[in-house]
């Protein structure tokens, strides 16, 4: 044993020297490897910026091959792979990066985009949410909002309306003071079929800046969707005052004006005016029915013919009524019957949303439903 002690010592010394030597060699190797990989990466970045993604891809791959596990190279490679549609390969790199950094917002967003392109809806939504609640080293709020907007746009194509509105409601609660963004979100609420929420946002916008013509136009649209035509008219008028660029504005305003000029149910309407409007409605409804009867080939039911005759007689008579209000109520009832008869014979085609049709549809609904959709 005593003879082996110097051998032990010598061996340990050699081992230490080898460790040191290998350490130097490994350092030189790492430096060289890093330099080569960095060069390839830089070339790849240049090519990528120049739009030559296919060539950039080869350089990114080489960079990562030389220095495996470098997250910068791997992320760049994954992004360019997604752009070029190599989704399987991209996913492999992204999964690996996510294992190291599961809360990374950009990685989760890119994974969401891969899932979108592969048609995996649930997975996409999950990754979008992880991206929204993930960590973003730069501009976290902007990135989160942009991600949620991207998710909403994706849900508009595939997801349920409720899910979309839920995302929008969440987004509204996180919105910064940015009128343009708020207006965009209001538009998205409209597109998602939630005019109530849209109207709220447009009102905030108009309160913040009363000369915001686009916001007034948007508010008009929202109120229009909510069938609050008076509010819509007011909003459209304000929009027109501030020269809103909406090309539909004039049409919408004309429609609303026409509707409101026909509507006999407004509480503050004078009795004479109400009677006049009802009489006008009888005329317009009869004209619609006659037009329908002209097109109708089959035999006309007696009841309908009787109604038409009754309306014609009414319009032809020029006698004054003793109680115009009572008479108006009867004429309104006749109008409703005429419209129902017309609808039974010639239903309005889908999309034929004339002010007269909209008004008479509302008037012929059951009383409770009608009360809910009253304009006032």
């Amino acid at each position, binding site marked *: 044993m005593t003879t082996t*002690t110097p*051998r032990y010592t010598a061996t340990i010394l050699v081992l230490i020297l*080898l460790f040191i030597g290998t350490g130097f060699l490994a350092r030189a190797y790492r430096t*060289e490897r890093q330099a080569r990989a960095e060069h390839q990466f830089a070339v790849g970045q240049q090519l990528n910026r120049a739009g030559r993604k296919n060539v950039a891809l080869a350089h990114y791959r080489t960079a990562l*091959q030389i220095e495996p596990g470098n997250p910068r190279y791997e992320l760049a490679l994954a992004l360019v792979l997604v752009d070029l549609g190599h989704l*399987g390969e991209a996913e492999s790199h992204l999964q690996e990066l996510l294992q190291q950094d599961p809360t990374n917002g950009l990685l989760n967003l890119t994974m969401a985009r891969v899932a979108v392109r592969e048609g995996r809806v649930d997975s996409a939504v999950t990754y979008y949410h992880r991206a929204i609640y993930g960590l973003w080293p730069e501009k976290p709020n902007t990135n989160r909002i942009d991600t949620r907007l991207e998710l909403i746009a994706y849900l508009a194509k595939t997801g349920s309306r409720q899910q979309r509105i839920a995302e929008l409601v969440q987004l509204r609660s996180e919105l910064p003071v940015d009128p343009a963004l708020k207006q965009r979100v209001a538009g998205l609420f409209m597109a998602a079929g939630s005019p109530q929420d849209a109207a709220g946002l447009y009102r905030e916008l108009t309160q913040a800046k009363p000369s915001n013509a686009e916001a007034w136009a948007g508010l008009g649209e929202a109120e229009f969707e909510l069938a609050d035509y008076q509010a819509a008219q007011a909003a459209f008028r304000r929009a027109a005052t501030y020269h809103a660029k909406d090309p539909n504005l004039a049409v919408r305003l004309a429609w609303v004006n026409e509707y409101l000029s026909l509507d006999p149910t407004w509480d503050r309407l004078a009795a004479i005016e109400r009677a006049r409007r009802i009489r006008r409605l009888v005329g317009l409804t009869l004209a619609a029915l006659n037009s329908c009867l002209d097109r109708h080939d089959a035999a006309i039911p007696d009841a309908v013919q009787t109604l038409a005759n009754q309306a014609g007689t009414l319009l032809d008579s020029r006698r004054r009524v003793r109680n115009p209000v009572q008479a108006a109520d009867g004429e309104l009832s006749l109008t409703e019957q005429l419209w129902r008869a017309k609808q039974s014979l010639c239903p309005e085609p889908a999309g034929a949303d004339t002010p007269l049709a909209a008004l008479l549809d509302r008037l012929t609904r059951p009383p409770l439903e009608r009360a809910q959709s009253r304009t006032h």
Partner: protein
Amino acid sequence: MDAASAVSDVPSAKRPPAAWPTFGQTQRFLALSILIGLFAGLLVVCFHITIQFLGWFTLGTPVGASWRRTLLAPAIGGLVATALVRYVFRKARGSGVNHTKAALYVYDGHVPFSTVIGKFLACSISIGSGNSLGPEDPALQMGAGVASLLGRLFDVDKDHMRLIAPVGAAAGLAAAFNTPITAVLFVIEEVVASWDAGVLGSIVLAAVSAVVVVRWFLGDQPLFHAPAFKLTHPSELIVYAGIGVVGGLLAVLFVKLIARLHIGLARLPKRTTILWPVVAGLLVGGFGLFLPQVMGAGYDAIDSALRDQFVWQTLLMLGIVKMVATLLCFSAETPGGMFAPTLFTGAMVGGGIGALAHLYWPFPTSTAGAYVLVGMGTFFAGVFRAPMTSIFMVFEVSASYEVILPVMIANTIAYLISRQLQPVPFFEMIARQEGVDLPSVEEERERQPMLVEAAMQRGTILTLSADMPVESALSALESAALPYGLVAVERGNWSWVTREDLDAAVHGGRGSDTIRQAFPLEPTPRLYPDLALDTALRLLGPHRLLPVLSRARTGQVLGILTLEDIHRAYGVRQADHAA
């Protein structure tokens, strides 16, 4: 070995209170295993770095590499490397696995250190210059060489010295492959063929130390970035079985082609042999112009395939071209190993089949990456006939439990096909080509030992009590016409007496004594029916017979075994025995 270690484990009064703890041989061997692992790890780190540097120097980076370099580098590298092992480091020629086996079975653990230097230089040059070979086999041999040197340095006793080469081999392989379990299994399965706890402990310690060193210097990045494995549909197992069939058949074809090519090349004039690596290198360089992935070990390409980078056509083409390239390099005796190329071929062929299945299989399947992972081991299992290693290798690389079932199916099928169609295992074939006759570990593993139950006598046993008078015992034996009887001694032990002994005792006037009084009754070793017959032979020693006892009922005698019974079972003729 056990006896030796037992003796040396006894603290000796003569030993001085040395600066180093007074370990026994076994403990010293375990400590030495760690040292071997550290040295082997350092060596493999340097080997790896050298290959990388040479690769950059000769081939440059893959993007925009010069076609002249790609074409010529493997040829020049092959020529230099072959010249080194042929003229300078002659003992570094040949397979590392076989060298290690030779050290274990022939040379008492001696591996010349020149093989380490030779392998290091030659294989760095050949692999670094793009020849289609891998660094694992050379690393394995370098580990064995370092271990042998350390063993000689520390005067390790002969029994341990014989085992030192496999310990170093495991360390070298573990460091090269960054997979300690695989390395341990391979050495056990292919070199040592023993699960002895002492050997296993040393091999594990060396492998783990080596991997620690490698990870220290080169980082803990895995060799492959395996995809998360999931069996998409049970019918996928059929595809995996198909991969096993194809992998097995390709492995048979590969081994047969190596054998044929060896015979064909042997017919060429001797002076042309130095040119073979040049021709092989040129062909590999030519392949590399179109498929650069086939050059070198090919780990990067396997990694890319695991990430679904290639379409099925590319995968299949890579697998076949790599097989041909490896066949050329190996047959031309360009220094380098076969592990990485076999993994490459299996991975690409498996991936190609998987990618095809992904397109046309009527049920949902995983992407090609999963099939690359499973396919990786099939060709390896077929060529090297190391099914356990191939299974655990994929398991270790993927770190997934779910992959085990498909891998077991595919690799076992590949192994069975290879065994059926190629009678001589690859390493045995190579050893014979090198002019060495090494024991086949596969045959050793599968050899069925003859058991005691095949030779024992049943039903002709006379059991006597130790307190029985000698006269009575003699008459009992005479009436049963038996030459000997078993004597029950205390606590379920047995001894034996012969009729001649009893007769002599009676004639000596001790007929009324009990057997216990007349004879020194030493308890005999016990035999059991499931004991190997050669073990029984060793236990028989000076005894005329030994009792065969039941394991289920302690002390119950099932039969007896004599030397004659053993001879009869082994077919030894009495005349030969007498002679």
